[in-house]
Every structure is written in structure tokens, then in C-alpha cells.
């Protein structure tokens, strides 16, 4: 009963808040204010949450809200991509990363000190004020754009409905080089991260036990040396977990 009353009270407050926003800004802007406000709150939660998994969860909510903003900007393929890459992949990777470093997952959370936060807050707020002033003073492009011949609704509609196709064309023709560079970057990060993360002992000693000759799991000699030398291992073997 108490719960129900709480829920209904919360709904009442939320409803009044919505009415207020909608009266003030109009429906579209009202929705924007709600989504953006929630996104900022989630960002604050990410930064302040003491438990890292909670922090990651706030981050996930933030990613989702940013995807909503992308939809409001009519870039739906990117919104889907945002969910797919950030929530589906990056968040999972972050959570696995958290599970792999022991000190941080559970109740042992970091202590916040005012000494760290105060200067940081001053710097951050200062930067925000600068940015806000800059934003307010810049020439209004959107007005300029509407004055210039805006693309017809039908043309825009067509582009937006064919967004993935158009994006593919653009990516393959105009932005071919950045696209290939991203491929290179992904490969480099894949190789680098795998090489870094591989436990050093297992690399030089062959993965486990006795790999049969000619098998693909056997580590090439030069490769293992390179990788082992590339990380920190050889100088401080006592600090390296097996």
C-alpha cells in the first residue's frame, strides 16, 4: 500500500513536471528537455557512483539517452549503431574489465576526497562557462540555413529513409580513406590488445601443455619473443601473475 501510494505520488509529481515543461517550451522541446536532462543526470551518476558496476549502468543509460537524442536529430541508423556498439559491446567490455580487476568490483570502493574534487570542479565549471558563453555568442547557423533554400521535405524524407544506403555510398566513395583507416585502427587495436592482455607466461611457454607440431595454436618463436618483449615482463618477472 505504501509502495502504491509512493508510486502514485511520484507519478503525480512527474505529470505536473511534464505539464510545466510542455507549457513552457512546447512539446518537441519538452521532450528534448526531458531526455537531455536525464542524460546529464546519468552522466553525473557515472562520474559520482562509488560502485563501478553502478557507474557502468549509469553509463549504459546515458548511451541509450544519447541514442534517443540521435533519433531526435533524425539519424536513426546512428542511433541503432550507438545502441549496438556502446550498449551491446562497449558496456559489456567495460563490465568484463571491471570483473577482471579485483579491487574495484564490490564493496571496496574508492574514497572521494574534497581535495581532489574542489580544483577539478572549479576547472570543469570554468570550462563550462566558457563553452556556454561561446555557444551563446556564435552566429546562428540554423537561422541562416532556414533562410537559405532548405531542402524540400520530400528530398529530406528520401535521404533519411535511405539513410543506410546513402551512408554506404558516402562511406565508400567520398570517405574511402578514413574508412580503411578505421579498419586499420580496429585491427591494430585488436592485435595490440590481445598481445597486451595475453598472460606473458603462457605466451612464451606455448599455450598449455604440449601443442602438437604444425598446429595453429603453437606460438611462432619470433612472435612470442616480440610480444613478451613488448610488454613489461622480462625485467620484473616477480610482479607478473602467471
Amino acid at each position, binding site marked *: 500500500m505504501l509502495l502504491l501510494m509512493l508510486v502514485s505520488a511520484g507519478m503525480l509529481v512527474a505529470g505536473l513536471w511534464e505539464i510545466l515543461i510542455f507549457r513552457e517550451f512546447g512539446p*518537441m*522541446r519538452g521532450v*528534448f528537455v526531458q531526455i537531455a536532462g536525464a542524460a546529464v543526470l546519468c*552522466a*553525473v551518476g*557515472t*562520474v559520482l557512483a562509488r560502485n*563501478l558496476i553502478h*557507474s557502468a549502468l549509469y553509463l549504459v543509460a*546515458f*548511451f541509450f539517452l*544519447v541514442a534517443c537524442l*540521435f533519433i*531526435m*536529430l*533524425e*539519424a536513426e*541508423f*546512428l542511433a541503432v549503431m*550507438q545502441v549496438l*556498439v*556502446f550498449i551491446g559491446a*562497449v558496456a559489456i*567490455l*567495460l563490465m568484463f*574489465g571491471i570483473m*577482471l*580487476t*579485483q579491487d574495484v568490483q564490490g564493496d571496496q570502493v*574508492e574514497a*572521494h576526497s574534497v581535495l581532489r574534487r574542489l580544483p*577539478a570542479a572549479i*576547472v*570543469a*565549471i570554468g*570550462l563550462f562557462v566558457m*563553452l556556454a558563453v561561446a*555557444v551563446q555568442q556564435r552566429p546562428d547557423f*540554423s537561422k541562416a*540555413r532556414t533562410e*537559405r533554400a532548405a531542402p524540400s521535405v520530400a528530398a529530406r524524407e528520401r*535521404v533519411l529513409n535511405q*539513410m543506410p544506403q546513402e*551512408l554506404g555510398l558516402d*562511406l565508400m566513395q*567520398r*570517405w574511402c580513406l578514413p574508412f580503411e583507416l*578505421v579498419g586499420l*585502427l*580496429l585491427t591494430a*587495436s585488436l592485435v595490440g*590488445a590481445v598481445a*597486451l*592482455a595475453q598472460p606473458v607466461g603462457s605466451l612464451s611457454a606455448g599455450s598449455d601443455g604440449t601443442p602438437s607440431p604444425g598446429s595453429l595454436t603453437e606460438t611462432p618463436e619470433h612472435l612470442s619473443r616480440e610480444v613478451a618483449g613488448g610488454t*613489461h615482463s622480462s*625485467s*620484473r618477472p616477480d*610482479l*607478473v*601473475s602467471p
Partner: protein
Amino acid sequence: MSQDVPLNWYLIVAACVFVIGLFGVMTRRNPIAVLMSIELMLNASNLNILAFWRLGTPNPGEAPLTGVVFTALVIAVAAAEVAVGIALILVCYRVWKSADVDRYDSMLG
């Protein structure tokens, strides 16, 4: 439809998120939390790019999807960054036995 929402609002929100991410980078001591804050900043920049693309392109006929392409590339870069970042954090954790950026104070390896 979405032209109702002015460009400035998007820019302010992005600036706000960026600054929050910056605050996180400066105050958090856990490297993974720092990485998350960097993600916040990257997303803020993405939001900026898209807002400029949609609402502020001076000449929309010329390059209809430039902003979208750039955002897609930034998303890919962000993913790669997290992947390598966490690998580095794991190595640091292995070496220093601690997940605290303040303790990573030597370059001896």
C-alpha cells in the same frame, strides 16, 4: 519537426556532458572509471557533430551525410579506444597490483 529544438540547446547539453566527463577524468582514481568518463566526453562530441550536421550545416546540398559519417567513425574509434584502454589497465593492474591511477607512477615497467 526537430527543428523546433534549436542548435544551441544541443550544444549546451553536449558541453555539459563533456565537462562532467572532464570532471570524472580528473577526480576518479580507478582507471576504468576514467575510461568511462572519456566515453562520456566522446559521446558529447558525437552529439555535437550530429547537431551541427542536422541543424547547422551551412550548405546542406553539398555534403548531405558528412556529419553522420564522422559520427560513425568516432563511434568506431571510441570502441577501439576502450578495447586497448582496458588491455592497458589489465597490464597495469598486473604490474602494480592495484587499480588506482595515482599509483601508476613509474615508467620502469
